[in-house]
């Protein structure tokens, strides 16, 4: 028989078999059968070696080409069988995946709690409905004092009359009872809703969130306050160095009283038209000071031995600053189109 014809027939046979193989295992068996050491094809070099010079050269070339072709077909088929049967365009957007989100306010609450925990503060909880004493009198804000006008109050009703309970106008109302309960030395923060009898607009709401902190020990001073404030704002705004500025301020429950500004996180003092800091290079973020001795005394603390600092800030404004939210009412909504963004 013509060797050349035989080789071509063999090629066709192997090619068909390989193409018909349905699994990788089937293909492997075919490979052993047709390309293995004991295969018919493997015996060919011996046959060729016995041919005359011309034939050897001619058939040898055909054999080599054939072998290369079979191996190529084998490789291609193997690759084909290796694939999962699917038609997929990688431009496909993928399925819509539902990822449930927490509300940014509660997300930030946890973030803030974590920062203050790492700074050695305990995290406490306190009532939203408090007595007039807790909210005002204990904090050196007596009745019939204009300082009360700063905090327009929503009161609890008692048989149609104003009761002695109110919806806390600031988280500072936690101070006296918390110090009494936990004792000194103490470092604690409280977070939560506060309420004001106030008209709402883009930057004001009648319900909003504050954080108040206190630190009391025999050695506490304003330098310690500065450290905590700097570290907090560095963490919160994720910056390596927060520029913190103290200014005189007045809150009846602290003395000295301070306003705390931070360097503008938007223009970093470089813009001539910054809408956030209005070119003042600073943003007012917190009130603070050394706890007034009268407040400490009311909490049963020896004010000759212990001193403490206190600070408080509006959390909503910080969230709005950090995420460029321009309307507090959006922040205070459950619109999923809003929540989904965080």
């Amino acid at each position, binding site marked *: 028989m013509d060797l050349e014809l035989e080789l071509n027939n063999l090629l066709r046979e192997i090619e068909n078999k390989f193409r018909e193989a349905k699994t990788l295992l089937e293909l492997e068996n075919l490979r052993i059968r047709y390309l293995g050491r004991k295969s018919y094809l493997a015996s060919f070099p011996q046959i060729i070696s016995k041919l005359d010079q011309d034939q050897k050269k001619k058939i040898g070339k055909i054999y080599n080409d054939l072998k290369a072709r079979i191996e190529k077909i084998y490789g291609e088929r193997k690759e084909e069988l290796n694939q999962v049967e699917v038609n997929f365009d990688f431009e496909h957007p993928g399925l819509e995946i*539902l990822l449930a989100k927490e509300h940014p306010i509660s997300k930030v609450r946890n973030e803030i709690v974590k920062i203050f925990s790492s700074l050695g503060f305990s995290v406490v909880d306190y009532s939203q409905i408090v007595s007039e004493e807790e909210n005002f009198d204990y904090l050196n804000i007596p009745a019939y004092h*204009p300082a009360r006008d700063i905090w327009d109050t929503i009161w609890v009703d008692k048989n149609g009359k104003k009761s002695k309970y109110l919806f806390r106008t600031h988280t500072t109302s936690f101070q006296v009872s918390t110090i009494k309960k936990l004792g000194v030395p103490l470092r604690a923060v409280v977070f939560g809703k506060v309420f004001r009898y106030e008209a709402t607009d883009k930057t004001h709401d009648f319900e909003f969130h504050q954080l108040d902190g206190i630190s009391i020990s025999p050695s506490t001073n304003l330098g*310690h306050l500065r450290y905590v404030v700097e570290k907090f704002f560095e963490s919160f705004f994720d910056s390596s160095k927060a520029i913190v500025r103290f200014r005189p301020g007045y809150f009846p429950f602290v003395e000295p009283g301070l306003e705390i500004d931070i360097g503008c996180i938007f223009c970093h003092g470089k813009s001539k038209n910054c809408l956030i800091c209005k070119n003042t290079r600073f943003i007012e973020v917190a009130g603070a000071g050394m706890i007034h001795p009268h407040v400490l005394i009311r909490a049963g603390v020896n004010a000759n031995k212990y001193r403490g600092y206190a600070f408080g800030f509006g959390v909503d404004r910080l969230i709005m600053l950090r995420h460029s939210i321009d309307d507090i009412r959006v922040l205070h909504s*459950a*619109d999923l189109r809003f929540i989904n963004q965080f």
Partner: protein
Amino acid sequence: MKFRIKDLEKYTGKISNWQKVADTLTLKSFETNYTDGIIDVDILPNRYPDASCLLGLANEILLVTNKPRRAKLEIKKPKESKEKTEGKLKVVNELSDEVPYYFGRVILGLKNQPSPSWLKEFVEFYGFRSINFLVDLSNLVMIETGAPLHIFDLDKINDQVIVRKAKDGEKFISLDRKVYNLNKEDIVIADRNKIIALAGINGSSLSEVDLNTKNIFIEAAVFSPEAIYKTSRRLNLKTTSAFRFERKVSPSRSRLALERVTYLINIYLGGVVLAGIIGDRKMPIRQIKFDFSLIEKISGLRLDNKLIKKILDSLNIKKNGNILILPSDRLDLQTPEDIVEEIIRLYDYNKIKPFYEYSFHRTSIEKHLEFNNLIKNFFLKVGYFEGYNYSFFNKEYYLLIKEMYPSAVKVYNPISEDHEYFQNNLIPSLLKNVYLNQFNFKKIRLFQIDKVACEENEKIVEKYHLGVVYADKDPELILKELKGILTKLSNEFNFNLELVKFHSTLFGKIGARLRGLGFMGVLTKNMQEKFDFDLNLGIIEIDLDELIKIVNLRKMFQPIPIFSVIERDLSFFVENDMTFSEISKQIRKLKVNFLKEIKLIDIYFIAKKSLTIRFVFYSESRNLTNEEVDKEIEKIKIYLVDTLKVELR
């Protein structure tokens, strides 16, 4: 408060860079803005007595810009007549506690006239209507000194001036000729037969000065801030004078104002000043014991004594050992801490270095807050978004849910009718949240954790509640998902969940009480219509203060099965009143080998009630064969069919 710099410069001298002054004031005293010849200063409330006027603010500016000069008012002691003031007008102060200082002077034979343009312009800039020369001068002096004055037409005063409390129901006629009803808390200035001024708040038209006025009585007084506050708020009569008295007026400034206005009147309007000041007396010296180590204790700054002395001098505080003698107009300086504040603000607050203070104790997080976070994470993991709400709702919501949550805290002065109650449950807020989102989403899954309040035994009690809502088309799907979530929750937090059917307006019959914890249900069609919902709403409300008491958060390890677990499901029809718990109880009484667990997989209704129950078999010692399990299942089937009369499917 706005001031013209041309007025301030009369006291400070010429200043070239007012922007710089404004910046310095902001850092050392009060937040200040400067534009076009005007500075706007946010005077701190406790600094009103000394700084809310040209004299005081000018002094503050000189102080913070390190100028040695101090502001001074031009005053020359008037040439007094021989006639004594007291001889002309008797003044009786019945209220020495509430009116500690009541100074006065009498000027006779002056000639009042309309104000010249400079004065008119001045008072108008500072927010007053120009009335006439006399009145405008008294307002000018108030702006200069911070102390309110009042000028009476002496000829309209009947015989004497009495400082007293009003009688209940006594009438006061204001300068605007409005009539006010007074009570016995109000301080008034009266003569023999009428009230001639509401002390510290407003004069009366019955004694006002006009262009015909020739003889005057000038009052410079210090009234109790509290009394002025009460009267001014009660009558809703808020005047500049009341505003200042509420924030305290310094007696020395008051006396200074009297002398200044007397001087100016004398210059511009002539007249004879009678001899002596009514109520004149020496001001007490205010002093305080001061421990200088307090500066470092409070600020962490170590300042040298020379520097401290220099600052005290600049403040006009005299040091006598550890006693400090305070300037008479700085009423805000009361405690040693106030002195420290003065020293460090004038030195530089921003030289205080940050300093780490070691922890005093192990920090803790309130248990409830941690628990709330666990609940929150659970709901996020099962695909619920966290909503948000305001804490108040209206009466309609309150009444609607009253049968589930009867006690609520009512608001005395609600922001609006929609905020009459403080929330005692979260359902209204869930409804609002769904309403807001239903136009954009067809499936809404939300939860909230927030404080609610109610009254228990006359006491207000606050609790944390969990509210969950799932809004979708198919109510069965909603109920199954919510029940699945509750079951998962009870497994995850290891507590017993017991549902008891509960009929309510909100849910109709499709509602249940979660015993001891709360409620769940699907809103009735009526409610859907009422609140304008396109979707069905399933709701869960749980009292987390109760839940936290019964959960078990510590997980105990259960050995992982070594041998294979075999499960068999049986589906069958039962009578409607037959329950899974009863069936399961009965089967447990049978002697079924290797039966480890009986689970209810599904209940549905196709004409009849159908149950699918899963039986779980396991042996601790070997792998069970199918044949063995088949034998046991057969026992169960026979019991179900023969005894319980179920119809296997």
